[in-house]
């Protein structure tokens, strides 16, 4: 079997203007910064990014890529939390960035559903709030739920601690967060790994994201 390892430039060549890009990480922790920094150099526009928050672009955070927003590469974000992220708010105020808020657990589950071939699900989250607007409400066994649809992306940029050349991945602690879910939900998945090893070096029962979900593996440049 051919190795899935490619270089970072070849990987980011696969992103096209207008794509929906799924970005792992939580407040920047566990984000694929080697891939994101390469994306930041590209002459692309109208990308939609889907992530827990905009931490990967927060100029205050180490490694962050504010250019993704400031240069108009990403023009729409779907997140659960904008936070006190000055880069995000300044671009929203300038009108160069639009956003949609999605409850964090609903976002996670919509991605998981997409990757699992499930059309959507009924959840109690958001019943009676603005999140419910335009959605079907249903009473099941006496409890109220709203219908949330699965959510797919064109390309996922995800990060792990260790991957083998077949794309089997292991994450470190809380850096896992949204990464496996983003990988499940995208048509093409690029996995950045701090360490790349040969198949067999990760014991089968230690794999947290099976290589079946991964198309390409890139060496991370992070310390």
């Amino acid at each position, binding site marked *: 079997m051919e190795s899935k390892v490619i270089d970072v430039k070849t990987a980011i060549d696969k992103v096209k203007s207008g794509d929906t890009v799924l970005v792992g990480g939580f407040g920047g922790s566990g984000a694929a910064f080697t891939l994101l920094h390469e994306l930041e150099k590209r002459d692309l526009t109208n990308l939609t990014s889907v992530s827990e928050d905009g931490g990967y672009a927060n100029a205050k955070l180490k490694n962050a890529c504010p250019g993704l927003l400031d240069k108009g590469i990403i023009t729409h974000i779907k997140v*659960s939390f904008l936070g006190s992220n000055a880069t995000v708010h300044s671009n929203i105020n300038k009108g160069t960035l639009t956003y949609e808020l999605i409850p964090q657990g609903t976002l996670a589950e919509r991605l998981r559903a997409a990757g699992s071939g499930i059309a959507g699900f009924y959840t109690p989250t958001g019943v009676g709030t603005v999140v419910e607007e335009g959605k079907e409400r249903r009473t099941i066994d006496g409890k109220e739920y709203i219908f949330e649809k699965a959510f797919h992306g064109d390309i996922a940029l995800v990060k792990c601690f260790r991957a083998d050349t077949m794309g089997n991945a292991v994450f470190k602690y809380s850096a896992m*967060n949204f990464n496996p879910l983003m990988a499940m939900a995208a048509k093409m998945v690029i996995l950045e790994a701090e360490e790349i090893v040969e198949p067999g070096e990760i014991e089968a029962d230690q794999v947290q994201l099976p290589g079946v979900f991964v198309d390409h593996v890139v060496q991370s440049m992070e310390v």
Partner: protein
Amino acid sequence: MLDNRNIIAKNVAAMLHDGDFVNLGVGIPTLVGSYIPEGTTVLLHGENGIIGQDKIAGRAFDNDTEWEKAHSKELTTSKEGHKDLCNAGNEYVTLIPGGCCFDSSISFAMARGGHLDATVLGALQVDKHGNLANWAVPGKSVNGMGGAMDLVSGAKKVIVAMEHCSKNGESKIVDECTMPLTAIGCVSVIVTELCVIEFLDGEPTVTAMAPGLTRDELLAKTDTALSFAENIGVMAVE
């Protein structure tokens, strides 16, 4: 005498039991951890994918490269802290023995699926129906709901830890919430510096009060009708 925020935190901590799985939100709830009695182990859940938070090891991304280098790869464990081990507030943390990490869908399965014993969070308003508003103020820039809507939709007990009145002196306990809702009818208990209000059979019922406070004084500071339990406890304030 403790200040208001610490009075609230101490009285919330008294509601937690050994072995409880609890999510603590930002603000006053983060103070709760320091009032959990010696010998009681409460397992703290972080929605970013951790259970068993122990100590804060530092603020992530403060460009403390030396610390990060020394706590990277497989040089350290969850007991010592790691550059890839944060809580939901982006602080580096350590975990107690038996702590664990998981992805975001599992994290919210715990919340939504009723596996957490309690979620403790701050609020802008709670109304007499137990509706909660805690994520957006009309006319102000929006930060987003984050995980709050999910965290309150399944926890066995939703504890609101907030000061009784806003900075302008307006009651945060009201007839009907006017701010955007986080969830409807989700609140089990409100703990303020003045009282503890439990929703018993759907009725906001005072079950404890600060020492020396009269019922009239409490009602004068509250913008909705309150019932009083037969036995009113005295809140700890020291």
